[in-house]
């Protein structure tokens, strides 16, 4: 059996009294398209941040392609591509400059970095905005340039936090195509989302996170159990429907 792309053991993160991630064990098979779903505040971002070295775990270990992220960062960080959510990019660089900068930080030779940057800009439909400052990009363009920066060094595992959040359908399709091409070659994508339909369509493996713990994980068919992913998810996290007596005034307007 090949080395799993990501192995997470007993991962815990506390912020003061709150427990963001409460002991997570997960294995992401190599070459999988892995969806991490959960309601807001379930700990998805914290989990991804710990897996990529941006947040230090309170306890537990993370291995990326067999390398411990915290004990062997040289090997692990080289194999990670990261697109965080809610963190800034270097926005006063143009798209082209940002990719050139990131490529060199990743240790690529200058010409190689620039060549890959041009290709990514073209494929992600950003060539026209290559010399525009990232500060002036729309949300979809930001996600795309962030994805390009994460892909630049051809990582073995790509960690994407909410890559489709607030992205227009055209950009979403472009992102999907690139990601599908990337996983077909045996690389792994781990992404978080609360767009169930999207996860249902894209992923072969999912994990459901709720209150910092994994409540279900495995091949998508097993987690779904014959229902749609959304229904399975709502059953798992226990969503309530509004009571019959509430909101009675709503919808009665004749105007």
């Amino acid at each position, binding site marked *: 059996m090949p080395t799993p792309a990501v192995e997470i053991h007993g991962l815990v993160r506390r912020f003061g009294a709150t427990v963001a991630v409460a002991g997570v064990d997960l294995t992401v098979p190599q070459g999988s398209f892995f969806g991490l779903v959960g309601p807001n505040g379930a700990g998805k971002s914290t989990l991804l941040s710990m897996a990529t070295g941006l947040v230090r775990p309170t306890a537990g270990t993370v291995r990326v392609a067999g390398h411990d992220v915290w004990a062997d960062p040289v090997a*692990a960080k080289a194999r990670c591509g990261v697109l965080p959510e809610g963190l800034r990019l270097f926005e006063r660089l143009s798209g082209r400059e940002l990719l050139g900068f990131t490529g060199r930080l990743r240790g690529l030779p200058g010409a190689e970095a620039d060549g890959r940057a041009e290709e990514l800009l073209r494929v992600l439909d950003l060539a026209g905005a290559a010399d525009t400052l990232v*500060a002036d990009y729309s949300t979809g363009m930001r996600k795309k340039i962030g994805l390009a920066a994460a892909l630049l060094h051809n990582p073995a595992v790509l960690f994407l936090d909410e890559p489709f959040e607030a992205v227009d359908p055209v950009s979403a399709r472009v992102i999907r195509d690139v990601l599908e091409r990337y996983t077909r070659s045996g690389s792994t994508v781990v992404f978080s989302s609360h767009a169930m339909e999207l996860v249902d369509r894209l992923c072969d493996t999912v994990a459901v996170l709720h209150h910092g713990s994994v409540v279900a994980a495995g091949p998508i068919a097993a987690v779904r159990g014959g229902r749609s992913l959304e229904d399975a998810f709502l059953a798992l996290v226990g969503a309530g429907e509004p009571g019959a007596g509430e909101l009675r005034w709503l919808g009665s307007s004749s105007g």
Partner: protein
Amino acid sequence: MVGLFVRLKLRLLRASLRKPARLVLVVLGLVLGTLTVGLFGVALFVFRDEPRTAAALGALIAAVLALGWATVPIAAFGVDETLDVGRLALLPIRRERLLTGLLAAAFLGVAPILTVLLVGVAVAAVVRSVAALPVALVAFVLLSAMCLLLGRLNTSALSRLLRSRRGRDLAVLVGLLVVLAAQLPRLLVQNLDEQRLQGIGDVLRWTPPGAAIRSVADASAGSWVPALAELLYAAVTVAALLAGWYVALGAALTVVDASTERTRSRRRPGLIALLPGGRLGAVAGKELRYAWRDPRLKFSWLQMMVFGLAVPAFSLLPAGGRFAPLGVGLFSALLVSSLGFNQYGPEGSAFWLTVAVTATERDARTDLAGRNAATALVVGIWVLAGSTALAVVTGTPSAVPLALGAGAAVLGAGFAVGGVLSVLAPYPMPDQPGSAFAGPGAGRGCLAGLFWLVGTVVTAVASAPVWVPALVWGDRPLVVVAVLAGGPAWGSGLAWVGRRIAARQLLARLPELLVAVTPDRT
């Protein structure tokens, strides 16, 4: 509608006071403001027997207030959300009602209240007769309205622009200019006498705020025709401002915002071509681009460079000889390198990229070295040009190598101190791109100032073995050669040691540093 807006404003005020640091700031502002009002009150009372001087001083106060209201709200746009009428665009309110409501709300707040008080003092000081009281009352109302309307008119007219990134950058620059301009009154006061003040008053009487004050003085003197004419002039101005605001309000409420306008970058700024390739060059290039493109960073850089040149030029040129050119090297290096005492702070959460790509101590050292290289490049060129210019004036060419050598030592010491301070005592810059007044986060300003002081002192002490001989024995050729050769060696040695210490800490504290430089969400 008026009641609603007044309550909204009061609620926003109360909410903003819930943060202790903000409360302290507001109380401090109130105390300082009241003291200022009192001070002017006393000054105006002193001139009671000099009607012409009193009127001139009153006109000056009124003009400065009006100018302040015309500029400061633009800079404060990102801070005070009640200034942004665009936020009300979706509410079904008629413009007339919106106008009265916003105007009423505009009178609430620390600055408006202090303004009204100050206007009151200025008007009261020029009243000389009971008969002039009605004129004074009208002038008082007109002046207060004039100030507040100026603030509203500008922010409404510019609200479309101010919501775009270019506009916010512009607002930051306006704010920084206001901060600089605030130094002017001090210079003015130092050279002010009654004669000059009256001269200023004679000019200002032709401006609307000056005319309003003048009308009270004229009425007191019994010349009613000019008094009424001046009052009319002020009233017409207020009416024009009101009409302008009405139009601007309509435009701000209906025209889509410009936040999607784009700026293209120049592909190759000159200096960046000089940088080496690879990681070091990439970091240095990013630093140079940011120094040029980020208005706050750009201003800090320019300020430090100008001070580095101006302080020695003004204070040391009279002493003659090598002192002024040498001073350019020392001051520029000290001040500019002090910008690096919190070099990760301005990056904010974008620092995650550095966290994601830094895995070895060597990576961390290269990152620090790249930042240092960018600074060294700019300071080197600046000191070479500045000290050469001053050396030509004083006729001491040997001062140029002295300035370069000693400057390099100071710069290297500053890099060592800056690297260590940046890693051990980082603090975030607030996430308010539209505000020039955003310093270090709440409550951290004091600590940041302390670090700056300690850092500059340590820098000066660590580089003393080079700059002290340059200063004392710089007229001997042997010392010039020794400083030119030894300064860069000493400086790079210190910087190397500092980078090793800082890099080890940086690598060990990467995630913690990311938390430390990420601005608090408000």
